[in-house]
């Protein structure tokens, strides 16, 4: 009777749902494509816009822990390393993309070069954990690098190929508020209260708390 919980713990530890889900999707898309695409389009909002929020909360928790005092990406100088590495991560595929669309005679794809910036964070997380183990410093490094690459891709897409009118004012306000919050957390952490900013992040009511609980 204890086999099922043990199996589920094993699956959770090794993130087996990801390859399992990918395998199902692959088989489904190649056997019953119409129902697959109908389902995937219908589930797009739930998956892309809702479930991904929770996934990114989990990723945020990893990043917060890694950049906290004592974390493998602390201080900021270290945290910048994967961010800078992401420039290479984005530049090389984009360069290859623009190089290959000509010989492959796919000019319509030329405008899609910012898409090459995208790094699958979930897959990167899964592979990094598989290779290095769950607690290895390379895991948060890979996550930050992947997130930074995606952010660069989003910024590039927004700048050169916006699908809707841009709202730079709203975006800047959002960014400033986020940075102010981060600075406030950081200052709190450097005070004498003994509560570091990751502690505050973990406090009740913090957005990170829910994500932390999901992991436990």
């Amino acid at each position, binding site marked *: 009777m204890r086999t099922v919980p043990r199996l589920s713990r094993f699956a959770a530890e090794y993130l087996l749902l990801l390859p399992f889900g990918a395998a199902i999707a692959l088989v489904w898309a190649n056997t019953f494509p*119409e129902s697959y*695409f*109908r389902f995937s389009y219908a589930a797009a909002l739930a998956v892309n816009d809702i479930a991904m929020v929770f996934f990114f909360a989990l990723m945020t928790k990893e990043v917060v822990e890694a950049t906290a005092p004592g974390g493998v990406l602390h201080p900021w100088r270290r945290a910048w390393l994967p961010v800078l590495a992401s420039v290479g991560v984005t530049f090389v595929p984009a360069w290859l993309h623009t190089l290959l669309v000509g010989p492959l*005679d796919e*000019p*319509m794809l030329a405008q899609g070069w910012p898409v090459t910036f995208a790094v699958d964070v979930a897959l990167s997380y899964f592979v990094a954990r598989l290779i290095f183990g769950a607690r290895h410093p390379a895991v948060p490094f890979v996550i930050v690098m992947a997130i930074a690459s995606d952010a660069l891709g989003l910024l590039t897409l927004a700048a050169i190929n916006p*699908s809707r009118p841009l709202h730079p004012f709203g975006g800047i306000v959002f960014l400033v508020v986020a940075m102010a919050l981060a600075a406030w957390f950081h200052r709190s952490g450097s005070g004498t209260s003994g509560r570091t900013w990751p502690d505050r992040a973990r406090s009740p009511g913090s957005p990170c708390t829910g994500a932390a609980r999901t992991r436990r």
Partner: protein
Amino acid sequence: MTAPRRPTLPAVGLALLLAVAAAAQSLPLPNVPGSLKFAVIGDNGTGDSPQYDVGQQMTAAHKRFPFDLVIMLGDNMYGGQSPADFVKKFEQPYAELLTAGVMFRASLGNHDRPQNVSYELFNMNGQRYYSYVRNNVRFVVIDSTQVDPAQLQWLDTILRDAGEDWTVCYFHHPLYSNAARHGSSVNLRVLLEPLFIKHGVDVVFSGHDHVYERIKPQKGIYYFVSGAAGQLRRGNTRPTDETAAYFDQDQTFMLVEVAGDHMNFAAISRAGKAVDSGIIRRERQ
């Protein structure tokens, strides 16, 4: 009194040849005055001799079947797309048609540069997707390479407001195809077909697979794959129950005539032979 001369073997051969040639050149279309006549080409822009051969057949057909419109199903240009390429891969193969005032109206394929929407002779007026009316037919041109929410919204509106007798959509990627190379674009079908059904689209033309295939009506809509006006994938079709007719042994283009509630069509090979033909009767009122 002399005995009647028996025809010699060369004479019989010549007569047979002429008969075959005459049969090959006759078009199985009513050719009614005042009807809408148009030609269909897809995946044509190679600049190679087969494209020129098809262009010659189109010119020959135009003399007997005076169409004034050619719809292009994408991949209008392969490889280089410089001004010289436009001459070699478009203006020269169809020079006589262009001189005769035939209008070409293009859709974009995956081998076309997005900037080609501004090429004057494609008559796209800078739009990736657009619509126009000829006689009693509403033509809706879709950019199937990049189907975004904005285009779907536009498509929904334009199809809803179409008040003409016939609605014909054309774009590059086929919703139904039984060619081995690409086959049906099912991801696209899931997006477009509900709109086609909802608004009563009659006929859909696509290319992408370099063969000719006529699909049996799917949910009341007629689908054609005509992507061999320059390119060809010989023997690439894997006919299924969906296939009504196909031809993949030579380059092809199509001729279509719409008169009242009837649409006649014919697929013509590079040799000028009609390899498929038929009639579609408009069912919706």
